[in-house]
């Protein structure tokens, strides 16, 4: 609160005061009062007026200064009402009360949406667990009666499974707080799980899987990482080229500060114009349009999950040559100390 601005605001009071003062002065002159009485009277009334103004100014200034400073200092400025002391003047009290009411109504509104989204999220999670049961039944049925079913059926079931999983992790990525658990995980074990899961697709598509010394401990959530790797591998399998020795190569390199997991294929590759956009939501690019219909969600979710887990995911590629995705895990000394 600036004094000058405050005085401008008090213009009417000042004008009325001056007007009254001049009339009084004229009256005093008219009655031929003593000049020293007039001087004394003028000084007293001026000082009185200034004191009145200053008292008012300082009462308000303290309150508004605290309010404005705290708003600026807080990262969640809507909480400012909890941080200021109660004003001791009427206007201030009115203002605080009004702000409080506005805040309450907004909070109630937000809470409502929050409940709706958690509700929705819980429903989706429950639904996914339920839909997995018939998928599991279908896979078991297929296996038990292989002679009766076409092999194409299992491919379609696997597709459904993958899409369902994408939904699960799409929901999870925004409510990460309670869904993940970071601990030391053996990379080898995760890669082995992924390999087994996709074994049939590798063999069906005649893509070789090459895994080179991947034994290494990283700090991550194994289910999340499994999902991320599965998306990458699925992409590689989907966008393979029709050449003889298609492969996907998984490697790990380790340094003092970080572990880098790379997944490289010799597939279609990604045009350089598409490359910066592959992690964007619903981005399908040239390959996604040419090959099969693609949702463009896999890498988007993968990237989001990586961010949450604190891993860095990078992609490099050359069209008609290769695609190489690397995930960087940083090593954390803090965890070592805690152990």
């Amino acid at each position, binding site marked *: 609160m600036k004094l000058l601005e405050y005085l401008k605001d008090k213009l009417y009071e000042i004008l009325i005061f001056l007007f009254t003062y001049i009339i009084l002065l004229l009256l005093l002159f008219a009655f031929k009062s003593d000049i020293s009485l007039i001087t004394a009277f003028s000084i007293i009334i001026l000082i009185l007026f200034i004191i009145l103004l200053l008292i008012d100014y300082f009462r308000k200034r303290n309150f508004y200064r605290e309010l404005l400073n705290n708003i600026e200092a807080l990262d969640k400025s809507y909480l400012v009402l909890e941080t200021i002391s109660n004003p001791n003047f009427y206007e201030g009290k009115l203002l605080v009360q009004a702000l409080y009411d506005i805040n309450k109504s907004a909070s109630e509104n937000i809470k409502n949406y929050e409940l709706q989204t958690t509700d929705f999220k819980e429903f989706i999670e429950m639904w*996914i*667990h*339920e839909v*997995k*049961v*018939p*998928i*599991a*039944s*279908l*896979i*078991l*049925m297929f*296996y*038990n009666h292989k002679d009766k079913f076409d092999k194409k059926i299992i491919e379609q079931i696997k597709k459904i*499974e993958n899409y369902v999983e994408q939904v*699960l992790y799409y929901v999870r990525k925004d409510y990460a707080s309670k*869904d*993940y*658990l970071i*601990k030391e995980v053996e990379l*080898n074990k995760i890669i*082995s799980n992924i*390999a*087994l*899961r996709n*074994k049939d697709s*590798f*063999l069906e598509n*005649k893509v*070789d*899987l*090459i*895994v080179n010394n991947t034994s290494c401990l990283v700090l991550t*959530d*194994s*289910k*999340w990482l499994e999902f991320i790797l599965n998306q990458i591998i699925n992409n590689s399998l989907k966008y393979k080229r029709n050449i003889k020795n298609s492969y996907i190569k998984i490697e790990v390199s380790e340094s003092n500060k970080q572990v880098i997991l790379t997944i490289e294929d010799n597939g279609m590759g990604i045009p350089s114009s598409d490359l910066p956009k592959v992690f964007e939501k619903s981005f399908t690019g040239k390959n996604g349009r040419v090959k099969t219909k693609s949702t463009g969600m896999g890498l988007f979710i993968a990237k989001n999950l990586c961010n949450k887990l604190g891993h860095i995911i990078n992609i490099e590629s050359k069209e008609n040559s290769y695609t190489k995705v690397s995930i960087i895990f940083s090593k954390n000394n803090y965890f070592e100390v805690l152990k």
Partner: protein
Amino acid sequence: MERILIIEDDKIICSELKTLLKNSEYEPLILNDFKNALKEIDKINPDLILLDINIPYINGELLLKQIRIKSNIPVIMVTSRDSETDEVLSISYGADDYITKPYNPNILLLRIGAVLKRVNNYQEITKYKDLKINIQKGIISNDEKEIILTKNEMIIFSYLLNHQNKIVTRDELMTDLWNNNEYINDNALTVNISRLRAKFKEIGYEYAIQTRKGIGYILV
């Protein structure tokens, strides 16, 4: 024959699991009375339990906790709840393994086999007819001769040996190989098997491994 108790409330999964286990020469049993699950388990006294987390009346994790108070029956959690927390919780309550639905049936069977082996202190078969088998070293020998198998060949031969006189599909062999982190392709499997045959021919068992066309292989 090992008796495996299925605790699962979905009727179709139950019956399909039953078929799957029967075909793999286990004796499957199904728990019907979830209200008195603990008593039922006591009465049946199975060799292994496949336990779902979402079952009526009692949560699978709680049931596992109660089972563990007085018994060490191997338990594999089979569930659609796919989160690290559930897995860690289950293992800490004493589950021997944790598999999420939907699973590959071959993998389920491998895991069941592995858990049963572990708890029964299973001794690896070390003999085939008059041949001595050293799995760790990959050496098979009789009194006069010995042959050295590669890791892949040993995995294949062990699997055939454990299922002697039964037809083993290529898919089963493939799953076992991939499960042992040997990610080979179809051609490589064919090559490995013909090499294995050639080595057995050296030692006098030319016709030990036979092909059943369109189905798989059999060790006689």
